[in-house]
């Protein structure tokens, strides 16, 4: 007698969020230590948003930065708002099928960088006086030293580093998700995955 063919039970998002947090922290910390002019600290947020929706994505982003503040560097929690922007942007674009093809994915990755650059700038200017200690701060420092105003320098350095960084993160997140075996993807919301271009 064969067992009835029941669909697999969806994974509890409470168990997916910590994975996203760990990904954000692990990759982001290595990049921060190496002082590279990129961040790579939102791959977990993008992955969780695409797999489990915007609410899980926002929780992942905010919690990972709060935790990073306690474990890695106290400057992280002040940029929690940027993580909210990343989750909201990723969700909005994915909902309209913007990530299904490679070129729109690159374009929206660059656009995400512009959005996060604008979201981070007020925190860097008003809280850190223009220098937050990341690799991009070196660009801002150079611009300030050459006579640019702090806000202008931070915006320019953000717009120089963030689009490339976010495009890389979006592409990396997709490459990672595409490499996940089908039996694991089957445990997530099929409609969401099809809409996000992860299942055909």
């Amino acid at each position, binding site marked *: 007698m064969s067992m009835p063919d029941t669909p697999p039970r969806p*994974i509890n998002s409470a*168990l997916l969020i910590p*994975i996203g947090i760990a990904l954000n922290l692990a990759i982001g910390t290595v990049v921060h230590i190496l002082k590279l002019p990129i961040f790579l600290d939102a791959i977990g947020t993008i992955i969780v948003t695409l797999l489990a929706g915007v609410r899980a994505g926002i929780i992942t982003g905010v*919690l990972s930065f709060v935790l990073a503040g306690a474990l890695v560097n106290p*400057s992280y929690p002040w940029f929690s708002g940027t993580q909210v922007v990343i989750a909201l942007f990723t969700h909005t674009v994915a909902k309209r099928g913007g990530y299904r093809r490679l070129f729109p994915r690159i374009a929206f990755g660059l656009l995400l960088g512009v959005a996060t650059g604008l979201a981070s700038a007020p925190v860097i200017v008003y809280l850190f006086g223009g220098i937050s200690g990341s690799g991009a701060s070196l660009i801002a420092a150079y611009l300030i030293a050459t*006579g640019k105003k702090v806000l202008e320098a931070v915006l320019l350095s953000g717009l120089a580093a963030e689009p490339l960084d976010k495009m890389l993160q979006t592409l*990396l997140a997709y490459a990672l998700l595409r*490499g996940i075996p089908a039996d694991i993807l089957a445990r997530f919301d099929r409609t969401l995955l099809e809409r996000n271009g992860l299942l055909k």
Partner: protein
Amino acid sequence: MISSPQVRLISGLLIVSGLLLTRQVLMLSAACVGLIAYLLIAGHFATLRRNLLAIAPIAVILFAVHYLSSYTSTIQSNPPTQTLLRLFGIMLTFSYMATMFLGYDSLDRFVQLGLRGEHLVIAISATSTLPLMQTTAVQIIDARFAAGLVRSRSIFSTATQLPYILRPLLTQALRLAIARSDTWHQRGMMQRLESNLSPVRMEHRLHPVELVAILLPLAWVTLIVGREFL
């Protein structure tokens, strides 16, 4: 140690208000000394070390910027004071952030914060998944090193292994999460967690240390308001 989340929040809000109101190096440095003293007395040396390591590159860059801009700028200003003001401000925000989240890594503390059910699981898992994934990442690097695919164990060499580590790391973590999700569902873990959670004894009376933690920032903000506006 200050255990009440409400006390931490109130003193934190007072510190942030003072930080936004003052333009005086003396007031900011006094608050910094106070917070650093608290971290030292409470024995949080690792947190203090992390804060100093985080602020050191910022300090170097800020002083370098002001040193260089003093040659290019024609505006008469006081760069060292401005830089010190910024540095003490950053140090204060870092120390405040550190004290806000100190010790929030156990079940009791999370329950005390009011987390229940799914949110409690997320908070506990968030603090426990990272070491687990770090161990797996080390195992993957070890395996690649043994296979002769990694030349050395330097940080740069490890960083180049990132793309090869991430995919198996994510797949393994997702498999583990699925296995956990199934086990939890079968054993009704969420319901058990809700029903068997021992109530945490809530202290309604303010501890003397907590009273000081509110009164000191309050006095500091009052002094700032007095000096800046009256």
